[in-house]
């Protein structure tokens, strides 16, 4: 059972690291600001969520697991809000007369 949980953690964390890689490559290679923002939010949400899910079986006790979930919730909320705000600022700058 512990082996199975370790395997689950390794798969989820590797997938999360892959999404960080994809976010970096997209941020460097995509042509305009909106597509770069798209790549960035994938790294923010999916990468961190997969890392947190993979870490949940590895921590000691319920309190640390709850703290992990709290970090995840905070990053989800803030990255969603910040993505909207950055997109709005880019759009206002583009449509400026």
């Amino acid at each position, binding site marked *: 059972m512990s082996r199975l949980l370790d395997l689950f953690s390794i798969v989820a964390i590797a997938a999360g*690291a892959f999404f960080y890689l994809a976010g970096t490559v997209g941020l460097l290679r995509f042509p305009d600001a909106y597509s770069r*923002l798209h790549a960035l939010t994938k790294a923010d949400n999916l*990468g*961190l969520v997969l890392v947190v899910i993979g870490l949940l079986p590895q*921590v*000691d006790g319920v309190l640390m697991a709850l*703290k992990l979930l709290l970090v995840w919730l905070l990053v989800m909320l*803030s990255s969603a809000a910040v993505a909207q705000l950055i997109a709005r600022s880019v759009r206002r700058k583009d449509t*400026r007369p």
Partner: protein
Amino acid sequence: MRRRCRGSGSMADFLQSAAAFIVLMVALGLVRVARGPGRADRMMAAQLLGSGAVGALLLFGAASGDSAVFDVALTLALLSAFASIAFVKFAMRQDQPDDDEEHAG
């Protein structure tokens, strides 16, 4: 002394190398700060730095079994959100100084 994480030593090694990989990726993403044409692109790289650092800190905290690192990650998440929101307020005020219906209240 705190107990190590439940996984064996090789599991802690894997967690630390995953953290190092994420830090490397975020450092590569900082090239966008130097190259980016607009301020928003630079701020996106900073946002990626924030979330990548949170992920790396969580991995490192689970590898070392130290719960204080999780508090550092929580604080960093809060600070990076504040940084991005402050940037957006500043950029909008500077781009359109006459159209500020949001600052009316």
